[in-house]
């Protein structure tokens, strides 16, 4: 059964999406929507292909056997996103068998510039600029408002077997993720 949803702009076109999929967040207090709910706890994390600073593709499957943190955000060139990369970079140095993947729609060149300037060496940055397969599968694409077309702020942790064990859709984009809760899952 198809449920009639609200109309949302996607890439300047109006599309219909079933409203039970939508997640509501805020951008400095203004309501916005993502394209859906994060993958459920206990479900298998969808595979993806994203591009690193060397323009090489990385898939989630290549990290099987490790705990994987997906630190998802709008842009490394904004303060809160940059801070989350710094925080995970610092913490990652003390974590065993954990890989932190920072994911946004920033181009790889922007990530590279940032990581060199900030001496970020313990985490991986991955860019979704070739298609929207990651944000479609993880439901992190923002569908309306000024941040339409960017990713929402979210943290997902995947265990060694590829199952989702933790997720946070940060309710307000201008707010830090819950680092403590995420790190507790990793230790």
């Amino acid at each position, binding site marked *: 059964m198809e449920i009639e949803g609200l109309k949302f702009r996607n*890439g*300047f*076109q109006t599309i219909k999406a079933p409203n039970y999929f939508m997640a509501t967040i805020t951008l400095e207090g203004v309501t916005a929507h993502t394209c859906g709910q994060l993958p459920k706890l206990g479900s298998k994390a969808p595979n993806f292909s994203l*591009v690193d600073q060397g*323009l090489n593709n990385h898939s989630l499957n290549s990290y099987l056997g490790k705990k994987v943190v997906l630190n998802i955000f*709008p*842009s*490394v*060139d*904004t303060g809160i996103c940059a801070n989350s990369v710094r925080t995970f970079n610092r913490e990652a140095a003390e974590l065993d068998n954990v890989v932190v993947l920072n994911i*946004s*729609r*920033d*181009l790889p*060149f*922007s990530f*590279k*510039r940032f990581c060199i300037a900030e001496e970020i060496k313990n985490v991986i940055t991955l860019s979704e*600029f*070739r*298609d929207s397969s990651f944000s479609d599968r993880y439901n992190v694409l923002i569908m309306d408002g*000024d*941040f*339409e*077309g*960017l990713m929402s702020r979210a943290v997902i942790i995947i265990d060694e077997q590829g199952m989702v064990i933790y997720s946070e859709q940060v309710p307000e984009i201008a707010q830090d993720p819950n680092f403590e809760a995420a790190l507790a899952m990793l230790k």
Partner: protein
Amino acid sequence: MAKITLGGNPINTKGDLPAIGTEAPNFKLVDESLKVQELSDYKGKKIVLNIFPSIDTGVCANSVRTFNKEATDLENVSILNISRDLPFAFKRFCAAEGIENVVNLSEFRDTNFSDAYNVMITDGGFAGLLSRAIVIVNEAGQVIYTEQVPEIGQDPNFAAALAALKS
């Protein structure tokens, strides 16, 4: 498909740039303030589309600096720098470099610009980025000059583009 090179290796773009004399396709892109801008907003001006892979690479950054410097001497001309960099990257770059005479537009929401202008790179490490190209549109919205730079690591022909603006 148009053939170009990246560091000497052959790669392809989606196709040929719009032909000279044709009407420049309209587009919607996003500026540094996250506002949508269209080509039609600039009707009545000469418009330079300075298209490139990423502001965070040397040749692209240099082209923005060059056009920013030249723009002060040009009357009734708007320079639009266009890439798939996020607006935040453009903003940081321009704030750091004091770039004030040009407009920066990002294609991150869809591919309407690169589809219409055939500037998407389709293979190799730069697949999904825009090729380096210059398109000049006159006051009536017609394409009057184009350059598909044949090698990504090479500057566009600034002198020829500037001559087209002053003619």
